């Protein structure tokens, strides 16, 4: 498991040319993304954002069999549900880390929902959003804070 994560994250790291911290048995957290405490990530590029769920989220969900994508054109609000994923007979709402308008959704997830598990930060992206309030990003966690947050959550049981 750790080896698979290291290979996957090294591949992602070399592609994106960023450093990734490896701790035994921890999930992958990428340095250039921002994170919500409901385990969604967002990549900000100008006033556009790409959103998905984190490696920690997909590990804790189990095999994703269905992704309910939002409609293109609808608005999303920070902290509010915009869709859902189903795994192990559980439908889990996914919340938007930022507010704005949905520009594009990842249609590949309709045929291949498991992309969320195998590639949560790349091919498993869920939606692209035009930001309505760039200031909101300040409320999100950076990679270090998110890593610590995950550790604290996992130590609760």
């Amino acid at each position: 498991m750790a080896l698979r994560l290291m290979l996957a994250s090294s591949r992602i790291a070399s592609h994106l040319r960023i450093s990734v911290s490896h701790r035994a048995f921890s999930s992958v957290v990428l340095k250039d993304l921002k994170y919500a405490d409901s385990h969604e990530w967002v990549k900000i590029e100008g006033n556009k954002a790409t959103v998905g769920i984190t490696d920690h989220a997909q590990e804790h969900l189990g095999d994703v069999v269905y992704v309910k994508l939002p409609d293109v054109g609808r608005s999303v609000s920070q902290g509010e549900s915009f869709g859902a994923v189903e795994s192990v007979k559980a439908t889990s709402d996914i919340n938007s880390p930022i507010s704005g308008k949905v520009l594009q959704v990842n249609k590949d997830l309709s045929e291949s929902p498991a992309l969320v598990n195998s590639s949560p930060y790349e091919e498993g992206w869920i939606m692209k959003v035009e930001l309505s309030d760039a200031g909101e990003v300040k409320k999100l966690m950076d990679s270090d804070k998110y890593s610590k947050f995950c550790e604290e959550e996992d130590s609760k049981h």
Partner: protein
Amino acid sequence: MRSPRTLEVWRLGTVNYLKSLKIQDKLVSERKAHQIPDTLLSLEHPPTYTLGKRRTDHNLLIPQSELTKIGAELHYTQRGGDITFHGPHQAILYPIISLRSIGFGARNYVETLERSMIEFASMYGVKARPGNKCETGVWVGDRKIGAIGVRITSGITCHGLAFNIDPDLKYFEHIVPCGIADKEVTSLRRETDALLPSEEVIHKQLITCLANAFSYDDVVWKEDPSVILDTKDVE
């Protein structure tokens, strides 16, 4: 040192499915706002077929118009999972719990629900097992005895599990249960020769197995179900 965790249990008897959804919605909001502790509803439904978020109604094998003839309702829900049947003598548990406060994800949660049912079945000498991949639920051999369908919003759970004590299994013939063809549905009555105590006792045992599986320190048995059943916002 972590603070003690309490589970409040409401035993509601037979509750109409839609009413149970409204009760759960209210409890989920209250749990999210930290107004109530983790809460468990223990109940039964009148004959009811339900579908999950994926709306797999091709797994209902009779026309919807026939349902009233057999005395059953059909409801579409937001839970995970496929089509299933709920009815008398099937024990239903709907835990409304905060997964974030125990650091659980969907997978851990569902696996713990499975363990609760397996533990309960073992009290009657029934060796049950969790499902294989894509077959979440509890099985005795190739026969399904317990079903799971869950919804998680902002880390709070609703819906839950259904364990077959002695329901009329003929109702399952009108569906492809959980979307899995060629596998039977069974019940505790069918799988054990042991004398079954009253359903009240059986429900209490199942609840206790769940409370233990989730390591609750304290279980509070709420005495007056009308508090939950008769609230003004729930009709």
